[in-house]
């Protein structure tokens, strides 16, 4: 065969049995799961995820993003929402879980945008936390020590320790929450600026959506400052749509991490595809291996579909040939 065959994708995802170090309950049926891992921990990048067998009795795995991956340990956050996560919540330290991973294209800095605004909501917080640490350790060209701002939102109690912020928020800040609100302790201790938002009235948190808090911060910046910013977000769809709207309003690049029901997680079943604009048409892309992080301004949200003809058309330049 004359065509050059690209085989780089082969053997890129490991299958690993991982021992549970801790499976820790937080308020609101939220759990933090720490596992011993050699291969996946060594290969994981921010925004990549694992496909986890919650219990040998279940026919399907569950995709979970990584909160951290270092020194032979990986950590995830999950919410107990159904049968699978309920079984997972019953697992004890010492038991093994079977994982495949790391999977997917994660968060990367945007060229010419040294300042990264990271926005996370609910169980979408983990990859944002991972990316913040990664950016601090691997600062993109032109960025300084304080070129990261992490804004996190949750209606449930935050599944991590918080404290009154000591790390100041960069930029021209006027809003009281941004000046001296609460921060995620882990990030604050490492001098990464973070602030919190919730409509549940938690102390030190901005009362409202996390997207509103992002808007307050962006509003305080002058044009030159803003032109250095890129948005990276992970969370519920409504939050992601709000982030994309902000990106449009301020003309900022915006990368968002998507979630979809998933069967294989290796690109084989087309169960997790989303619609992505490409040129004048729409292509179907798989959240698992083409994502989970996409250019937010190209994502076709379900709310948009309801307003247009959603039926498949033969004329659409469907390009799904990336394996």
């Amino acid at each position, binding site marked *: 065969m004359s065509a050059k065959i690209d085989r780089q994708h082969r053997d890129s995802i490991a*299958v690993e049995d991982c021992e549970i170090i801790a499976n820790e309950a937080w308020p609101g049926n939220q759990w933090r799961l720490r596992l011993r891992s050699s291969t996946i921990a060594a290969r994981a990048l921010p925004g990549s995820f694992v496909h986890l067998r919650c219990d040998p009795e279940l026919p*399907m795995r569950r995709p979970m993003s990584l909160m951290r991956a270092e020194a032979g340990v990986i950590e995830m956050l999950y919410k107990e929402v159904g049968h699978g996560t309920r079984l997972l919540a019953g697992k004890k330290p010492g038991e093994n879980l079977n994982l495949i991973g790391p999977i997917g294209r994660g968060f990367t800095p945007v060229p010419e945008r040294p300042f990264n605004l990271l926005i996370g909501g609910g169980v979408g917080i983990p990859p944002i936390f991972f990316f913040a640490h990664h950016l601090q350790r691997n600062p993109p060209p032109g960025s300084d020590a304080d070129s990261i701002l992490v804004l996190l939102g949750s209606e449930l109690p935050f599944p991590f320790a918080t404290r009154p912020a000591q790390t100041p928020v960069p930029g021209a800040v006027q809003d009281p929450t941004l000046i001296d609100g609460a921060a995620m302790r882990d990030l604050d201790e490492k001098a990464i600026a973070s602030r919190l938002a919730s409509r549940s009235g938690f102390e030190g948190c901005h009362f409202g959506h996390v997207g509103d808090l992002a808007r307050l911060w962006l509003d305080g910046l002058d044009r030159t400052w803003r032109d250095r910013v890129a948005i990276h977000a992970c969370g519920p769809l409504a939050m992601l749509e709000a982030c994309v709207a902000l990106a449009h309003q301020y003309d900022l690049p915006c990368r968002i991490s998507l979630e979809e029901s998933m069967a294989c997680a290796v690109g084989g*079943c087309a169960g997790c595809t989303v619609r992505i604009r490409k040129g004048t048409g729409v292509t179907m892309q798989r959240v698992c291996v083409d994502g989970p992080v996409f250019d937010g301004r190209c994502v076709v949200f379900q709310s948009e579909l309801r307003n247009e003809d959603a039926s498949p058309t033969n004329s659409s330049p469907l390009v799904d*040939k990336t*394996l």
Partner: protein
Amino acid sequence: MTPDPHDRRSLRTDFCGLAFDTPLVLLSGCVGFGEEYTRIEGFSNRDAGAICLKGTTLHPRLGNDPPRVRETPSGMLNSIGLQNPGARAVIDEILPRLDFSETRFIANLSGSTVEEYADLARCFDDSPIDAIEINISCPNVRAGGVAFGNDPEMSQRVVEVCRKETSKPLIIKLSPNQTDIASNARGCIEAGADALAVVNTFMGMAIDVESRKPLLGAGQGGLSGPAIKPMALLKVHQVYRVAKPHGIPIIGQGGIVSAEDALEFMIAGASAVGIGTALFYDPLVCVRINEGLVDYLKRHRIDGIDRIVGTLESKDR
């Protein structure tokens, strides 16, 4: 001398003139266009005798609205809706990237009219593909698919027109959602089928009781996984009785997750067995099943896997 556990010579089988290294066939819709699972470390296309590529239509299709997959007790529902880049792209851009020395590749074709089936068969006849599987059983499209597969006359017409267009082995994938699968199988054989795939998914649905809405974007989907195994096994048994006199082999499929499951299907009459949903649970399942089959043959002192096909003993013997 201890036999080599990796020696799989006893699993080699001839299927419609194609040399399969093992009787395992990776099923259409589960493994994309043949390269996706090679991402998994330890997975090899060589662990399967053949791979059925993703269902392909004449023109590109975006597929159904999400959610497209849903776990159910011992199984899953899917309603992908034949998302694919269209026959031309598959032949021109995907087939050249496959390594045909690793396994046999089978195209899976789906039309919304009889003419489209004929066009598709003609396109793929002029391609390096090893065999053609005609999908007259997709439960997730409005036109064609299962609507053809549940109508014996239409099934026969589709097979007839495809037969005229190709000399490649022609496999007909039958729907379990019909009253008399055996007589439909007989019709397909008379119309020129070389082999039968038994069975596609069973139609099903799931509802979110809080919102009272269907849990799949398309409202309904196809059920697969261990939940359907006993039903699929019976269908294979029924079809084998009409296919055997014609020497027409069957790819038995439906919820196979272990060597024992695979053996059940082969004893019931399948010459090869399909692996689909099991991959989602265990991407290395083929290695495990192949080992189990080799071990079984050794224990029963049988020198080739094809010797067990259709060896079901009657209860009273």
